[in-house]
């Protein structure tokens, strides 16, 4: 279902295989299995990780590095089971995700409207643009010292940093999105009887969506990273804290586990929320060329 666009492209060689001379039945069957596999969403989403994990495993088994510095997949899975059983990992994950949800929620609620206000009103924009660029340049982590002084080691401090990280790229992408709406579309809407408010909701909002969706994705990615960084410094709990704390006591497997958890969570968020949203909107409308159709 996710491979609507890719199917016709990939089916063509399949139709040709039987006619090819010299291809043994075994090769043909292998090719058929491969084609069947590449059409499964699960395979296309998880397949690329198989060689990565295999390589990781191999390096660990060969003992290239000392086990105190490098652990293999079995140790990490074991550690995962252990921490799940003890309830530590679920607790930390809940903490991290709660912080992320607060940060992202406030970040979007502030960034999107502010972005559109700055984009729509030239005077507001002229005033805010230099300020926007200035504060975008002050790295999120650079705020941590003063934020800890203000809010202590609290949820507020972490939320502040995440919101800060998300808001600026989001605003810039909204401005870019509004700018990239073709002038002719605005004119067409006006000459079909749309007033300024209707033009905003009917043309500017959907027209800016490709760029805004990109901004939300980048913003979330930044927020995710800022969360881990903030937890390492502010940390009293959370996945970032777990990793840093494990390093302190020399438990490398927890550090590896933390990295895997971060990657998997982000990938799941992207595959289950962000990518389907983009497929249903901007790709459906033909506003960006689908990556899969190109391949």
């Amino acid at each position, binding site marked *: 279902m996710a491979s609507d666009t890719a199917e016709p492209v990939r089916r063509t060689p399949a139709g040709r295989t039987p006619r090819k001379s010299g291809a043994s039945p075994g090769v043909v069957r292998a090719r058929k299995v491969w084609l069947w596999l590449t059409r499964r969403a699960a395979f296309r989403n998880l397949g690329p990780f198989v060689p990565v994990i295999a390589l990781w495993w191999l390096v660990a088994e060969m003992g290239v590095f000392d086990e105190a510095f490098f652990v293999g997949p079995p140790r990490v899975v074991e550690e995962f089971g252990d921490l799940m059983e003890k309830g530590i990992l679920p607790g930390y994950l809940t903490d991290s995700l709660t912080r992320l949800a607060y940060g992202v929620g406030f970040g979007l609620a502030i960034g999107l409207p502010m972005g559109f206000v700055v984009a729509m009103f030239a005077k507001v924009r002229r005033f805010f643009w230099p300020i926007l660029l200035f504060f975008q340049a002050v790295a999120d982590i650079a705020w941590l010292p003063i934020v800890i002084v203000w809010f202590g080691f609290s949820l507020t401090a972490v939320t502040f940093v995440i919101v800060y990280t998300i808001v600026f790229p989001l605003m810039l992408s909204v401005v870019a999105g509004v700018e990239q709406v073709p002038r002719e579309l605005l*004119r067409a809407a*006006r*000459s079909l009887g749309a007033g300024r408010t209707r033009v905003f909701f*009917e*043309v500017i909002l*959907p027209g800016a969506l490709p760029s805004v969706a990109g901004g939300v994705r980048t913003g979330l990615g930044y927020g995710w990273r800022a969360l881990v960084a903030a937890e390492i410094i502010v940390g009293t709990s959370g996945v970032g804290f777990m990793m840093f704390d494990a390093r302190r006591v020399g438990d490398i497997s927890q550090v590896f586990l933390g990295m895997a958890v971060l990657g998997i969570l982000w990938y799941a968020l992207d595959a289950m929320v962000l990518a389907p949203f983009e497929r249903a909107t901007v790709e459906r409308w033909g506003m960006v060329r689908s990556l899969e159709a190109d391949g």
Partner: protein
Amino acid sequence: MTALEITGLQKNYVDAYSGEEVTAIGDVSFSVNEGEFVSVLGPSGCGKTTVLNIVAGFVNLTEGEVVVDGRAVSGPGPDRGVVFQSHALFPWKTVLGNVVFGLRMKGVPRAERDAKGKEFLELVGLGGFGHKYPHELSGGMQQRLGVARVLANEPAVMLMDEPFASIDAQTRRKLQEDLTRIFEKRHPTVFFVTHDVDEAVFLSDRIVVLSKRPSRVREIVTVDLPRPREWRTALETPEFREIANRVNELLVDDEGAAAGADEDPGGATDADGTAVAGV
């Protein structure tokens, strides 16, 4: 009777680099009657699209007046629907969603506007494509949709800005015949900007020929070829060639003065009903 009246139109603008004031349109006056197809032709860069943009209300005029349906133009409005060269369809709306856009802005109830939208899609040969998205249509179909979107809104005048210029030659011929057929059937008032002489002669009742910058009306040529028109017969009629030659000479004459073209403009036979516009 008069759908569009342009009187003493002048447009100056300030060049962004040199800061000099440039006169793009010197003095343009003409009118378009209700149910009439009028084309505006002129040498490249003469500001014919600027005239259209002023009528559409996208650009402000410096001097003069534009009156549509008895009201002076200020800003864009649904009485002047525009068909753009770039089609300017809404990619996030279906074909039907594009056609009914204007009716929706007017507050026409859903059932009524959908029925009307479908009627106009049939008219342009896009019946059955309502659920598609614009990017799934060919260039020619997209432009037919652009025409349907404007006509469904029933404007006092339909403005067309070189609508077929970005479409390949064969499809263009077909689209011109389609447009003529639609015009002959429903008689909308059309203001058509083009740089293609044959296209203008084929489609129009009258052709306004502009001079080079600062543009003035050089001549208004009446095209009294019988309707319905189609390309096969039009190209065979001597009258068609005669009018086309006449318009070509008016253009070449003007460009020759500017660029020193080697073509001899002499021997112009006056086509029927030509009239020099009052300047």
